[in-house]
């Protein structure tokens, strides 16, 4: 699936969007959606909505921050 199709799904399917925001990788895996690693990281950063500039000085990537305890997905 292409990045634009996944983004559109996020924009138009509230359940998918909520799951993707909680854990994008798991949501993609569950639905059998494959995306290039760079695009996955980019989508994750865009979904999370944090300015990349605020993350960069510490050297952490959006993926690192996403997986930090503070942002551990809630099991629902």
């Amino acid at each position, binding site marked *: 699936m292409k990045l*634009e199709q996944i*983004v*559109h799904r996020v*924009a138009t*399917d509230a359940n998918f969007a909520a799951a993707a925001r909680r854990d994008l990788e798991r949501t993609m895996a569950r639905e059998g959606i494959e995306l290039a690693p760079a695009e996955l990281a980019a989508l994750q*950063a865009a979904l999370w909505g944090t300015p990349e500039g605020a993350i960069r000085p510490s050297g952490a990537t959006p993926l690192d921050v996403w997986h930090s305890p503070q942002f551990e997905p809630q099991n629902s």
Partner: protein
Amino acid sequence: MRQSLMAPPADSEADAGSRPRWLQLPLLCCQAAGGDPGLAEPVAAAWAVLYAAAHLLDSVEDGDAPEPWWKPLGPGPASNVATGLIATCALLLTPDTGRPRAAEPIRQDFFQTVLQMSSGQHRDLTLASPSLEECWQVAEAKSGAFFGLACRAGARCAGIDEALVSHYSTYGTCLGLLVQIGDDLADLSGGLAGRGPLGIPMAYYQAVTAAGTAERSDRFGAQAENAPTQPSLELLESSGMRLYLRAKAHELREKGHRALERATVSATGADELSRLIQSTPRSI
């Protein structure tokens, strides 16, 4: 697809003197590559003149509203000014440009890039309804190639190896595509009524509404079923267009940062280049 070049951009992509921030690109790349930025001044001047010519030609060919200075002249004389600017660019690229062995490759690169941009512009003008992929290809052939040129030329003035020059080229291409994203969004802010094709945002909308009909929500699908050729701005926004552009911008910034890290010798210019790509466009 509009390419804002010399005009002070709508989203404040300009420095305090109202010049676009990226006019310093050749100087910064020369500095980041370990060279004296003064060596890149002729190249920076030639690129700035070419920048003005490209902007003018693009405006005339796209039928954009004229800027105040050429409004009384009309498109014919304005095109003639652009021709003069291209000739001036050639005259600025003398055999002394940069370092002795760099001058000829720099000069050739300038005009090969002009050819590439002309080819991109031809596609832009003749493709009736470009796909999203074609839009990105056109953007890369125009803005991407043009900003890649600025960075290659500046880095070559530092006398570095061609393998390192390619990293500056990658950085510049990414920056050019980010500039294009900013321009396309600035175009949207002017509204959609009576406008022609609107670049990447519209191509995104067309791509997802054509491919994702079955996945759309009732609200979106009901409207899209009888979608006009030009959707409303609200419909475009609700399609996820900005989220898509944010993701693409992140991807381009990461790629640009990686290229810069591989090529940098001096932190002085590189820090500014890093800030530049991180803040382009200012907002999505």
